[in-house]
């Protein structure tokens, strides 16, 4: 009998957690609509191809009665990509959303497979302007949530893409290299450059250390390479940092795109008390290509409300009504 037990990775929320999570989702959603975003609601179930071309073990899958394979949505970005590509909706357009997303994590590690996300997608605007709107709206959302200690961290997808393009590795080796970069594996990257030497050796070996204060990271990175496309990416990072001079932005050049459709600037927000990023976002121009639509510039971010709750809950007084 499983009547009284929860499936793996699922949790009930009661009292303080239930109330505060609801208020966070409501406050952030209201803020985004006040900022001029159009609320969008997409379905929880979709055909699995919307989210990935291959079956991903990290997603929940089920069959409908016609035998179609469906996924519980692991993110809303792909869904909004589908909406824009498959309807006659006019661009430019700005969307905001909130709701539950589902990911299948390693079992029995104390992880949640259901998260509440809020976020935005800014489609078809000039990319500089869109990035500015994305960063400022993310900051406002974190402030309205009551988060005190956090910092933004920028990166640029073109840096690693340029390296991979020049190295022209086999797909398996490419995956190995990205894994080493993502893990900031100092020893592994040094050994990799010894086995597969290239003009990027110094840059690749230093990648694990290329994060932190933007000024020193940029200065260090420019000494390590003079590749035109990477220099261009560093310049656009510097410009973004200068636009946000009143909110010091950090950099992490070893940020590996979490989604294959990222093409430009990427950003994450980290804070004390929470082991993962609160917010992740960036620019993706290739999202719509997957759905057979023309090339469009899109910038978006998603905020994990569960992580925000984890960071702020100890600051909130709460009395149970019994």
């Amino acid at each position, binding site marked *: 009998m499983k009547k009284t037990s929860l499936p793996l990775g699922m949790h009930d929320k009661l009292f303080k957690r239930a109330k505060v999570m609801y208020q966070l989702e409501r406050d952030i959603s209201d803020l985004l609509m006040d900022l001029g975003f159009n609320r969008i609601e997409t379905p929880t179930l979709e055909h699995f191809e919307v989210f990935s071309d291959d079956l991903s073990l990290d997603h929940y899958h089920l069959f409908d009665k016609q035998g179609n394979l469906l996924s519980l949505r692991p993110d809303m970005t792909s869904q909004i990509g589908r909406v824009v590509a498959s309807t006659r909706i006019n661009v430019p357009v700005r969307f905001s959303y909130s709701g539950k997303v589902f990911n299948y994590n*390693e079992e029995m*590690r*104390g992880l949640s497979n259901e998260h509440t996300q809020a976020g935005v997608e800014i489609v078809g605007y000039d990319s500089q302007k869109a990035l500015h709107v994305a960063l400022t709206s993310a900051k406002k959302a974190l402030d309205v949530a009551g988060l005190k200690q956090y*910092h933004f*961290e920028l990166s640029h997808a073109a840096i690693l893409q340029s390296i991979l393009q020049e190295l022209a590795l086999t797909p398996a080796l490419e995956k190995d290299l990205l894994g080493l970069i*993502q*893990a*900031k*594996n*100092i*020893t*592994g990257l*040094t*050994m990799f450059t*010894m086995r597969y030497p290239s003009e990027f050796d110094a840059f690749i*070996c230093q990648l*694990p*250390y290329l*994060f932190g204060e933007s000024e020193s990271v940029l200065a260090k990175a420019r000494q390590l390479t003079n590749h035109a496309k990477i220099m261009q990416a560093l310049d656009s990072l510097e410009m973004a940092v200068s636009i946000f001079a009143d909110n010091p932005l*950090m950099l*992490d050049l070893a940020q590996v795109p979490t989604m294959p459709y990222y093409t430009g600037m990427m950003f994450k927000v*980290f*804070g*004390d008390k*929470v*082991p*993962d*990023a609160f917010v992740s976002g960036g620019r993706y121009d290739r999202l719509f290509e997957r759905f057979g639509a023309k090339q469009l510039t899109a910038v978006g971010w998603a905020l994990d409300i569960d992580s925000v709750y984890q960071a702020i809950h100890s600051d909130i007084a709460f009395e149970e009504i019994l």
Partner: protein
Amino acid sequence: MSKQITIALTKGRIEKDTIKLLEKAGFEMSFMADKGRHLIFDSPNQQFRFLLVKAPDVTTYVRHGVADMGVVGKDVLMEHPVGYLEMLDLNVGLCKFSVASTPNFNPTDHKRKRIATKYPTVARNFFKQKGEDVEIISIQGSVEIASVIGLADAIVDIVETGHTLGANGLEVFEDICRISARLIVNKASLKNKREVLHLIQQLETVVGNKEVPFQ
């Protein structure tokens, strides 16, 4: 004020090797000499806190950020590959993963092999990469017996000296990969505590940035 760094370690050899490395890096580690039954240790100046836990749990503690970093064998990381940064090869605890069996084992035999192992992910990935489909039998320990008494055609296990294999009449047929102790780090700790990056750099000067080969 400098923040305390919490480090999760596996009791036994990895713990001893790690303490030696920290001593080489110039830290005073005598507070770890007399452990008794304690599982949590704070250094007298509050610079470090050590947690003594089981090997696979090191990854869990680091993933949740209750430990900022941990030291654990690559064998364990290969079974639990996500949720942390694997930043440095400490070049201690060297050994290897190998396929071993009795001398009459024929690796090119046509039949689908049964492989006994404590490391099902490692074994599955190794044979998959060779394009070979095998049946994995998960065994908790003393894996050698499985191939001696015929439960499995071969085993995938850690080999350090080869003495245990030899004593049980087994030999290595193929090496899978080198194993050593690795330093794993929580993503947010690296970004939020300067002390964490500083310690990694100090350890790098002790262990170097190149793999020391096994044997």
